[in-house]
């Protein structure tokens, strides 16, 4: 595919266009990804997550600057929520990435969740692959501001960094255990504010409570992103963790699990597309069945079974041509 060739040659325009193609599920997107996939595996993927306003974008900017000092190239995917009511989105993470936005070797793409609930967008993992194939050494993903169980990042990144801040009104208890468990590194940002040390202690206690035996003890690092404090240490820890993952064989393990869950999602989605068009094409039929089911003339389980059979038939018919 020409667009993919252009991307391989280093065209930024083609890179941006390809991401759009895939994000909008336009014709040719899947074929392009088939060509992209063999080119992936070189980039290291860093996930940055945490509650709204914790400083994820500012930290992303500073981490990127630090990586650039070591001559590494960086791709950034910054995700913000889509409004469920209007479908629109205000993508403002770039505002806090001014330090790297004019660097040729940094590519920033803002993305809206478009209905995904796990803190990422559906196209995030494909966009990571595209940036990887393009040749970026690091891909940083900034999730939406998370609160409860938006933990898709663990299945998408090699390392997950959880950013929290003191005095966000809600203390660490408010951040659900599910989210606390995903941190390979904890960052207490805005350490210039009161309560940073207390927050560190709270996280330590919380981690101590966990009975899971771990080979890696998640470090807790204090930073002041706006003042560039603690960033060097953070990047060192990221590299240390990377070495640990490589040596222990866990990196290969994580990546295998990632592709496993991606494959399952791809299959689910393919099947879902059949269901979607089946229902769209037979609206009246389904409405009538619904009516009968509500009136207890039919049962829903039978309808579900029959529908799956119809989908299976359609799929095998497609497979034969």
């Amino acid at each position, binding site marked *: 595919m020409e667009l993919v060739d252009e991307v391989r040659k280093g065209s*930024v*325009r083609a890179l*941006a*266009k390809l*991401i*759009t193609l895939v994000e*909008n*599920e*336009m014709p040719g997107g899947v074929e392009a990804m088939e060509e992209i996939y063999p080119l992936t595996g070189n980039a290291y993927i860093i996930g940055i997550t945490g509650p709204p306003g914790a400083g994820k974008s500012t930290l992303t900017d500073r981490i990127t600057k630090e990586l650039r000092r070591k001559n590494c190239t960086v791709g950034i995917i910054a995700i913000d929520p*889509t*409004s469920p009511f*209007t*479908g*629109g*989105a*205000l*993508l*403002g993470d*770039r*505002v*806090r990435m*001014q330090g790297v*936005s*004019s660097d040729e070797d940094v*590519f*920033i*793409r*803002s993305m*809206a969740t*478009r209905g995904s609930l796990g803190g990422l967008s559906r196209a995030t993992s494909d966009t990571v692959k595209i940036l990887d194939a393009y040749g970026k050494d690091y891909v940083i993903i900034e999730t939406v501001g998370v609160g409860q169980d938006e933990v898709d990042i663990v299945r998408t990144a090699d390392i997950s960094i959880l950013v929290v801040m003191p005095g966000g009104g809600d203390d660490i208890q408010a951040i659900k255990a599910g989210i606390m468990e995903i941190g390979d590194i904890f960052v207490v940002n805005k350490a210039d504010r009161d309560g940073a040390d207390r927050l560190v202690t709270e996280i330590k206690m919380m981690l101590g409570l966990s009975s899971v035996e771990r080979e890696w003890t998640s470090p807790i690092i204090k930073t002041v992103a706006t003042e560039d404090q603690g960033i060097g240490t953070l990047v060192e820890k990221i590299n240390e963790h990377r070495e640990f993952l490589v040596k222990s064989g866990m990196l290969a393990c994580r990546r295998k699990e990632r592709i496993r869950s991606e494959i399952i999602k791809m299959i689910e989605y393919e099947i*879902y*597309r059949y269901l*979607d068009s089946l229902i769209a094409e037979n609206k009246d039929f389904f409405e009538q069945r619904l009516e009968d089911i509500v009136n207890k003339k039919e049962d829903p389980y039978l309808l579900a079974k029959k529908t799956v059979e119809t989908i299976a038939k359609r799929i095998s018919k497609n497979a034969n041509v």
Partner: protein
Amino acid sequence: MNQDKRIRVLVAKPGLDGHDRGAKVIARALRDSGMEVIYTGIRQTPEQIVDAALQEDVDTILLSILSGAHGFLFPRIMELLKEKGLGDILVLGGGIIPEDDVPELKELGISEIFGPGMSSQTLINYIRENLSQG
């Protein structure tokens, strides 16, 4: 579920101009109309704006300026867009821009200039109409 192609908009504030109320007002209005709006923040160089447009693959660029420096910044932005192969992108300007300057700016390739009192709906319609033609 197969969404229509979403309109992606870049709202940018070039130069040292700190008046950002208007830019934020239009950014929110466009978001509420269902568009994906990338806001760059204030103090953007023409290079930063054009790079953002390139990377974000936006359909249209909205330049908001109240400082009076449009006569210098807009030509530079248009020139860079052409250089980077983005010459046919829809560019709109707005803010405090004297009537007399408008013809010259349009000649550069800026499609329309909007000022105070413009209704959001006018802008939304303008973008939708002009993008569907292109």
